[in-house]
């Protein structure tokens, strides 16, 4: 009841103040209803409702925002209505002052990285409650910046996003940091960055220093170097470097990483993975996830643009994890061609070969073809196919994905999907193959409202989005989502 009253008050005050012409009140809402079968769930079908509302009020340089999350099932211990975020921000040309919940990343995230994965509502097998997938900071930050330099002072408690809002704040935010960061443009477009970082968790207090350099070289090349180091613990460090540039039709990016013992708390930091983020279904699920306890390696990404608009992309990554006297070396070779046939068919074709000893997957070969066929001015046909084979402990595993979609005027999207696998971890007893059939429908009602409906069986497992990897649960049933802005 207390939460409901707070929401009423916020909405009422927003309405009142937004009658002022220079003030704005806006918001968004995500409502998701599930009715189906989840792993280890006794209720079948299991109904649940998740809702996330963001309310935002702005008056000149001042912005106030709050996020309300709600989750309801038939089990009271999983249910909650929570003011999960509240923030105040004052921003001018030179000053940026924040109080409350915020997202901030220092450098490339070797010491601090927060994020929000849009649209990802997660449920953990251990805690069985759904919440939005994000990692924010609860605290304060003051930043002063000019075109020549910037200085920022920050203090905050970082969210452990494995724990849903049914847990107390003290349990969800047991990682605390203080930081002082600055950057200075010292020569033309070159910048030098410096971070002093203090991290505390349950009485364990540690200090770090980080420096970075970035800028252009020879006109057609950019570099970035970051080095973070524990001040007392000399064996805690992260080195990350990248260069990128172009030569005629060829563009390239090279990255190097060396991370040792650089996991802070529940995951306050997240150094760059230096592994390509794949959107293809089979490759996304197979993505190598960096282990900052001990990992070094590199990534090479090349793009070649043809004069007819076709683009060829080659990617190679190597990552070595050392545990005791054992080295596990992940290798990936990826090739993709994006092109067009007769102006009515656009396609992307890929082939990938990987060796992944940590997952025990040898000689993993994946290939796929995604097409977009123009049927008329408003109707498009979208056939997709992927195939993956590998060997694990002497057993051959095959994964496949087939989809056929129809898109009408970008407003209605229908897609029939079928995934299959022979993975012994997933195939049920007395069967040789498991099938995941499903239908996805998306209706864009107008510029502010979208409805998504899924029906069928969805394969869970690892998933990576916006640079972050996580686990999703298998699901069988119906799921409907309405997103709106107002």
């Amino acid at each position, binding site marked *: 009841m207390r939460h409901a009253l707070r929401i009423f008050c916020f909405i009422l005050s927003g309405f009142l103040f937004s009658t002022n012409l220079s003030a704005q009140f806006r918001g968004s809402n995500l409502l998701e209803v599930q009715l189906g079968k989840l792993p280890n769930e006794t209720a079948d079908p299991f109904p649940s409702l998740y809702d996330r509302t963001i309310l935002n009020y702005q008056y000149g340089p001042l912005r106030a925002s709050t996020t309300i999350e709600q989750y309801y099932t038939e089990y009271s211990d999983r*249910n909650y209505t929570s003011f999960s975020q509240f923030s105040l921000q004052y921003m001018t040309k030179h000053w940026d002052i924040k109080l409350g919940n915020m997202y901030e990343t220092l450098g490339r995230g070797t010491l601090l990285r927060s994020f929000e994965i849009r649209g990802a509502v997660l449920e953990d097998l251990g805690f069985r409650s759904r919440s939005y997938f994000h990692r924010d900071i609860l605290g304060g930050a003051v930043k002063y910046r000019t075109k020549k330099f910037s200085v920022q002072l920050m203090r905050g408690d970082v969210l452990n996003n494995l724990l849903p809002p049914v847990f107390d704040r003290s349990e969800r935010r047991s990682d605390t940091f203080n930081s002082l960061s600055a950057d200075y443009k010292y020569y033309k477009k070159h910048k030098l960055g410096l971070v002093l970082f203090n991290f505390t968790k349950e009485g364990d207090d540690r200090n770090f220093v980080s420096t970075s350099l970035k800028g252009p070289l020879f006109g057609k090349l950019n570099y970035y170097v970051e080095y973070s180091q524990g001040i007392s613990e000399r064996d805690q460090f992260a080195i990350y470097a990248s260069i990128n540039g172009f030569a005629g039709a060829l563009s390239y990016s090279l990255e190097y990483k060396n991370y040792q013992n650089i996991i802070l708390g529940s995951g306050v930091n997240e150094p*760059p993975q230096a592994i390509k983020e794949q959107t293809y279904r089979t490759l996304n699920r197979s993505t190598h996830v960096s282990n900052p306890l001990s990992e070094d390696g590199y990534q090479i990404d090349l793009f070649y643009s043809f004069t007819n608009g076709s683009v060829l992309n080659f990617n190679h990554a190597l990552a070595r994890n050392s545990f005791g006297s054992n080295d596990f070396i992940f290798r990936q070779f990826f090739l993709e061609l994006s092109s067009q046939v007769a102006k009515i068919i656009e396609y992307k074709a890929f082939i990938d070969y990987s060796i992944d000893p940590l997952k025990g997957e040898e000689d993993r070969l994946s290939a796929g073809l995604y097409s977009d066929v123009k049927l008329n001015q408003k109707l498009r046909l979208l056939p997709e196919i992927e195939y993956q084979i590998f060997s694990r402990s002497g057993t051959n595993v095959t994964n496949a994905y087939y989809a056929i979609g129809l898109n009408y005027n970008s407003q209605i999207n229908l897609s029939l999907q079928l995934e299959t696998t022979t993975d012994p971890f997933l195939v049920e007893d007395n069967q040789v193959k498991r099938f995941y059939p499903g239908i996805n429908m998306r209706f864009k009602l107008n510029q502010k409202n979208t409805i998504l409906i899924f029906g069928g069986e969805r394969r869970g497992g690892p998933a990576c989005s916006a640079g972050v990897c996580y686990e999703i649960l298998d699901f069988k049933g119906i799921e409907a989502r309405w997103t709106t802005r107002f």
Partner: protein
Amino acid sequence: MNGVAAKLSLISIMTIIIFYSGTAQHVTDFSLENTDNELVSLEELKGDKLTVIDFWATWCKPCTKAMPKLNDIYTSYKDQGLNMIGISCDGPRSISKVNMVSQSLRIDYPILKDIDCEVMNAYQFEAFPTLIILDEEQNIVYVHEGFVSGDETKIEEEIAALLK
């Protein structure tokens, strides 16, 4: 009690969503680094009549599909009071590829980097890519989420109509 609170709060949220018809959103000035590591503001980059902002990421396939077509639109209308800005929401994992991808796609309009995606978050857009068009007063007059081939025609028609 929890159930009552939940129903009340849900009802209140739904009420405001259904009945609130606010005026056009106004985009306040922001500053981000461009691909040359220079801090630039919306005020410096905005077009005389219209400003198109495209929120994208290097890992987003529809985004990279849209960008060459947006670049064609930019080339056609840049002399008529339009400017276009691409804001990359790439995080630490892929931000090093922003320059490379925009160069390989031969993008001429300015590309800015927003590692925490603060600008897009502030206006609560959910999808990649999201394209918005601002008028002279920096009010959002058009929003287009997602991209399939053919959408460029819709976007261009909207721009042409707004420039009249």
